[in-house]
C-alpha cells in the first residue's frame, strides 16, 4: 500500500514548524537577567595545555564569570558509555574544538570578546589523524588508542570459504557525516534559587543528562532538572551532552540564567559526527548462489573521545553479519580507535547503514560474478520469518523478507526513464535491502515509562520522557490516544522530555514508538476505567453504559459529562496512572544479542549520471517498508523520506575530511548537504502482515529510511554506467574518469 500525503494530514504542530513559528530552547532570550555564555575552544588538534590565563578576560566589560577546569564543581568528565571527555580541559586538548574555558557576560559579543583575551599556551603534540596507524601512535587515553575490539563469529568460516565457488572481496569506505540539524546545539541553564539548576535544552535524554549533569555540577540528582524542549533536529547529534555542562557551571557561578547557542562554525567544529568506516568485506557462495561464507574486517574512527562509539561498533557489526541473509559461517570483526579527528558518535543508522552499504554491494558483486539477477540472489538467501536472526537470536519481523523483495521487484522504477533526460544523461535503476532493529539491544538495560492523568482543567495529559526533535511525537501520541479513547486532539495535552516526569529512556535507537504504544496500551484502559468509575458516581449512570469520547463522557449517544466537569466535580488526582515497561526482547531463555523487533526496507533508486561530468542525480526513490502498523502517517512519511535524504547526502556529497586533525569544512557552504532541488521524487509503501493480535504491532521508523539508500544509489549508478562505486561519497571525478576509460576501451 502506498502511503501518500493527504490534505489536512499534518497537524498544527507540523505547520508551526514549517512556518517557523515554533519556539525552541535557543529562542529564550526573554528570560529576566539572562546572561550569554561562550566557550573557548582549542585551536590545536592535540596539545599540552601549559597555561590558561583568564585574568584579562575577567576585567572585560559585561563579563560576569570566567571558568576553567578548576571551576568544575564535580566530575570533570562526561560521556554516555565512557566518561572520558573533559567538560573543560585540564592539561591536554585532544581535538580542535575541545573546551578550555567558558565565559558568561551580559551580551554574547562581550562573552566572545572575553574569550579572545584568554591567554592559552599550548605545546603541540603529534597528531593522531590516521585511524589505520592510530594504534601505533602515542595513546590519547590510557594505554592504547584501541578503544574497543569486537568480533562475531558463526560456524567455521575458513572451511566455508574453502567450499565457495565464487568469492568477492572489496574495500569500502564511508564518510564522516555531519548531522546538519537546523537548530545548532544550544539551550539555557537556569538557577532554581535553591542551589539547583534547571536546563532547557535541545537534547535526546533528559533523565540521563540530568544524572551526568548532577555529577558534573556536584549536585544531588534531585537538584538538576532537564526539560528537553522541542529541538530543531538531533538525529543522534544531541544524544551526548553539548553545551549543558558549561552553561550549568556558569549559571551556578553567576546565579543567573545562562544561554549558550553554538553558531554554525562552532557546531561544525565541535559537534559529533558519523563514524567513518573503512572495511574489507569478503563474501563467498556456491555455484547456485547460496552464500556460504562472509568475512568483515572494519576500522572505525571514533575521534578524540568515546561518546557512543562502542555501541556504534556493536550495531555496525550486527549489520555487517548481513542479518537479512542466511549465511552458513561468518567472521565479523571491528576495531574502534581514538584519533584527534573530532569526535564521532550517535547518528541515525548508528553504524548499521555503513555496514549495509557494504553488505548489499557484496550481494550485487556476487550476482555479477555468477551472472545472476541480483534480486534472484537475494531471494535465494533471504531468511524466512520463522528463522532466527543472524546471531542466532529470536527475531520478530512484520512481514516476510521475500515479500519485501518481491514488492521492490514490482516497482515502476524498473521501467526505462522518460525521454526528457537528454542524451548526455545515462540512466539506471538499482535496489538494495536493509534490516533495522528497534531498541538498545544486546541485552542492555532498556525500559521506559509514561503517565496519563486528568488535569484540574479537564485536560487529558500524557507525559513521556522522550524528546521531540522534529518527529512530532506529540501528535503521534495524540493520534494513539484519540484512537483508544475516542476523544479529539483538543482534549489532550502532551508533555515531553521533563526529567521530573516519567523516565522513558533515551530518544534514540528507534525505540520511542514501540514504548509509547506499549505504555499507552497499558495505561489508557486503566485510566478509562478510572474516569468511567468517577463519571458513574457523579451521574448515577451504570459504568458499563459510559464511554469516553470527544470532550467528555458519553452514554446513549450523548455527552453526559465533560472532562472539565469531571475534573471539577470528581477526583482528578486519582486519575494519575503511571506505567513502565521493559523494551520487548526475545522470550526468556534466549540469548540477549542483537535486537528482537526487526524492520525491513527495500529501496529502489533511479539515477541519472552526467556523461560529461560524472555528476549523479537521483531522480526517484521508492521505499518498500515493513515496519508494523502506521500510527501517524505524516511522521512515518517524514521519517522514511527524511532519513532517505540523509542517506542520499551520505552517498553523494557529504563528508567532513580532516587534515592534521583539522576539519576541512567549517560551515554549510563547504559541507554540502542536499537541497530540496537535490531531493528526488519519493514513494513510500507500507507492507504490514502484523496480525491484529500481535503484541508489538508498532515499530520505530526513525532510522529505517537511511538503511538501504546508499547501496541502492550505487547499484543504480552501476546499472547506468557499469561502474561500481565503493567509496562514499561518490566522487564525480572518479566516475567520470572511469567513464572515459570505458569509452577509450570501446573505441
Amino acid at each position, binding site marked *: 500500500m502506498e502511503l501518500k500525503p493527504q490534505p489536512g494530514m499534518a497537524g498544527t504542530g507540523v505547520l508551526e514548524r514549517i512556518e517557523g513559528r515554533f519556539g525552541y530552547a535557543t529562542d529564550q532570550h526573554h528570560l529576566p537577567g539572562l546572561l550569554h555564555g561562550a566557550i573557548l575552544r582549542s585551536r590545536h588538534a592535540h596539545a599540552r595545555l601549559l597555561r590558561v590565563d583568564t585574568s584579562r578576560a575577567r576585567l572585560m566589560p559585561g563579563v560576569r564569570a570566567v571558568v576553567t577546569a578548576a571551576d568544575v564543581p564535580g566530575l570533570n568528565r562526561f560521556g554516555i558509555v565512557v566518561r572520558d571527555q573533559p567538560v573543560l580541559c585540564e592539561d591536554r586538548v585532544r581535538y580542535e574544538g575541545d573546551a578550555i574555558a567558558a565565559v558568561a557576560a551580559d*551580551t*554574547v*559579543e562581550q562573552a566572545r570578546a572575553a574569550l579572545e583575551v584568554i591567554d592559552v599556551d599550548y605545546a603541540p603534540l603529534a597528531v593522531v589523524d590516521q585511524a589505520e596507524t592510530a594504534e601505533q601512535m602515542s595513546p590519547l587515553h590510557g594505554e592504547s588508542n584501541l578503544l574497543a575490539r569486537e568480533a562475531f563469529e558463526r560456524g567455521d568460516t575458513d572451511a566455508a570459504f574453502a567450499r565457495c565457488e565464487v568469492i568477492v572481496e572489496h574495500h569500502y569506505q564511508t564518510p564522516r557525516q555531519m548531522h546538519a540539524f537546523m537548530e545548532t546545539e544550544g539551550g539555557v541553564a537556569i538557577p532554581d534559587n535553591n542551589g539547583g539548576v534547571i536546563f532547557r535544552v535541545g537534547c535526546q535524554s533528559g533523565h540521563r543528562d540530568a544524572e551526568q549533569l548532577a555529577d558534573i555540577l556536584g549536585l544531588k540528582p534531585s537538584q538538576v532538572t532537564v526539560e528537553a524542549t522541542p529541538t530543531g533536529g538531533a538525529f543522534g547529534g544531541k544524544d551526548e551532552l553539548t553545551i549543558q555542562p558549561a552553561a550549568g557551571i556558569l549559571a551556578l557561578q553567576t546565579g543567573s540564567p545562562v544561554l549558550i547557542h553554538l553558531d554554525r562554525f562552532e557546531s561544525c567544529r565541535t559537534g559529533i559526527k558519523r563514524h567513518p568506516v573503512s572495511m574489507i568485506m569478503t563474501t563467498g557462495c556456491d555455484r547456485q548462489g547460496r552464500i556460504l561464507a562472509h568475512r568483515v574486517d572494519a576500522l572505525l574512527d571514533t575521534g578524540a573521545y568515546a561518546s557512543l562509539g562502542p555501541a556504534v561498533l556493536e550495531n555496525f557489526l550486527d549489520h555487517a553479519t548481513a542479518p537479512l541473509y542466511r549465511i552458513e559461517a561468518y567472521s565479523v570483526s571491528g576495531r574502534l580507535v581514538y584519533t584527534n579527528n573530532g569526535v564521532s558518535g550517535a547518528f541515525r543508522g548508528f553504524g548499521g547503514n555503513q555496514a549495509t552499504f557494504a553488505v548489499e554491494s557484496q550481494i550485487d558483486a556476487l550476482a555479477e560474478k555468477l551472472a545472476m539477477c541480483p534480486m534472484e540472489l537475494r531471494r535465494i538467501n533471504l531468511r524466512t520469518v520463522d528463522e532466527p536472526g543472524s546471531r542466532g537470536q529470536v527475531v520478530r519481523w512484520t512481514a516476510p523478507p521475500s515479500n519485501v523483495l518481491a514488492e521492490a521487484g514490482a516497482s515502476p522504477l524498473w521501467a526505462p526513464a522518460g525521454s526528457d533526460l537528454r542524451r548526455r544523461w545515462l540512466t539506471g535503476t538499482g535496489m538494495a535491502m536493509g534490516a533495522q532493529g528497534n531498541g538498545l539491544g544486546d541485552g542492555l538495560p532498556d525500559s521506559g515509562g509514561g503517565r496519563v492523568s486528568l488535569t484540574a482543567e479537564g485536560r487529558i495529559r500524557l507525559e513521556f520522557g522522550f524528546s521531540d526533535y522534529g518527529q512530532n511525537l506529540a501528535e503521534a501520541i495524540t493520534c494513539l490516544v484519540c484512537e483508544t479513547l475516542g476523544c479529539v486532539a483538543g482534549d489532550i495535552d502532551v508533555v515531553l522530555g521533563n526529567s521530573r516526569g516519567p523516565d522513558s529512556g533515551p530518544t534514540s535507537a528507534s525505540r520511542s514508538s514501540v514504548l509509547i504504544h506499549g505504555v499507552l496500551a497499558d495505561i489508557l484502559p486503566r485510566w478509562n476505567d478510572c474516569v468511567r468509575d468517577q463519571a458513574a458516581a457523579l451521574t448515577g449512570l451504570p459504568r458499563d453504559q459510559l464511554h469516553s469520547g470527544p470532550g467528555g463522557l458519553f452514554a446513549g449517544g450523548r455527552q453526559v459529562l465533560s472532562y472539565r466537569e469531571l475534573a471539577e466535580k470528581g477526583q482528578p488526582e486519582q486519575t494519575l496512572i503511571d506505567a513502565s515497561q521493559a523494551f520487548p526482547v526475545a522470550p526468556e531463555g534466549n540469548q540477549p544479542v542483537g535486537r528482537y523487533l526487526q524492520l525491513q526496507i527495500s529501496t529502489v533508486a533511479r539515477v541519472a549520471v552526467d556523461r560529461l561530468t*560524472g555528476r549523479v542525480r537521483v531522480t526517484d526513490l521508492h521505499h518498500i517498508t515493513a515496519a508494523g502498523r502506521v500510527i501517524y502517517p505524516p511522521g512515518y512519511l517524514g521519517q522514511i523520506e527524511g532519513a532517505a535524504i540523509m542517506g542520499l547526502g551520505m552517498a553523494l556529497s557529504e563528508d567532513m575530511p580532516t587534515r592534521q586533525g583539522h576539519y576541512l569544512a567549517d560551515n554549510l557552504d563547504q559541507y554540502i548537504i542536499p537541497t530540496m532541488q537535490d531531493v528526488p521524487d519519493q514513494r513510500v509503501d507500507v507492507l504490514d502482515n502484523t496480525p491484529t493480535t500481535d503484541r508489538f504491532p508498532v515499530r520505530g521508523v526513525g532510522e529505517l529510511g537511511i538503511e538501504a539508500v546508499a547501496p541502492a544509489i550505487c547499484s543504480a549508478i552501476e546499472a547506468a554506467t557499469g561502474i561500481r562505486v565503493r567509496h562514499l561519497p561518490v566522487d*564525480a*571525478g572518479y566516475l*567520470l574518469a572511469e567513464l572515459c576509460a570505458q569509452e577509450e576501451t570501446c573505441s
Partner: protein
Amino acid sequence: MSDSLSNLNPVTARRAIRVLRPDSPDQAVSLARQFSASYTAGGTWLQPTHERDQCWPETLVALNSSWPGFRGLDAGPNGLTVGALTSLAELARQALIRDYLPPLAMFLNRVAGPGVRTLGTVGGNLIVGGDLSALAMALDVRVDVINHTGERALPFSRWLRERASDDLLRGFTIPDCRGWRISLEKLGYRERFSPTRATLACVHDGDRVRLAVSGEGGLLRLVATETFVNDRADLASGDVGAVIDRELAAHGWQDAHLRMALRRMTTELLSEVALGT
C-alpha cells in the same frame, strides 16, 4: 554622508563595523581611499568571508543603488547596459535579459540560493569571479568604472588586470548580442546553491566562438582554445579537448578530473552553439 555603526547581532556577535554611507559615487571613492575601506552592496560575499576568517573590516563604504546608472538595465546603441547594483534576482526577471541573453534567466536559478540572489548584486558577482564572470568575459563586456582619477570604460578583462583598489564599478555594457548563440554550463557539487567548481560560457557571435571559464582554477578566457576552434572551424572536433586541457592546466586548473569534465562540457557547448540548439 551618514555614518553609523552596524547593529550588533546578538547571535553572530559580529564586531562593530563602521558603515559609511556616501551621498555620491565620487564621495564613495573618496571615502574608500581615505579609510582604505572596501565597498559593500549586497554583502553576501563579504559577510561569510569575514565571518569565516573572524577578520572584520573596521570600515565599509555602502553603495547606493539609487545613484544614476548603478541599478537596472538600459538598452542602447552600444548594447545592453547593466547597473552593477542590480540584484541577481532582479536581473533574472528582466525582459531585456530574455532578449539579449536567453539562456541567462534560467541559468541564474543555479547561481547561489534565492536569499543570496535577492541581496547579491551583479557587480559583486563579477568582482569575486562568480558565475557571471565567465559569461562577461566571453561576451567581452565593457565595464564602467569610477575612481579618484575620474571615470573610464574599458574591457572587463583589461580592468581585471589593471584594477585599482578604489575602483568603483558602476555597471557594464554587453554588446548587442541578439542573434548570437550562447551556452552556459555550471558544474557544482549539487543541483542548487552549490559552490562553483566551474562555470563555462560559450558564445558564438556569428563569426567566431568565444570561451571563458570561472571557478576553482580562476577566471580565464580560453584564448588558445578559441584560436584552435575558430581556425579549425570544426566546432565539435574531439581534438579541442587536448587543447583546452593544456590551456587550463597552464593557467592553474590543477584538478585533472575537473579538467576532464571541462573538456567534455566544452565539446558539448561548442556543439550546442554550432548547431544553434
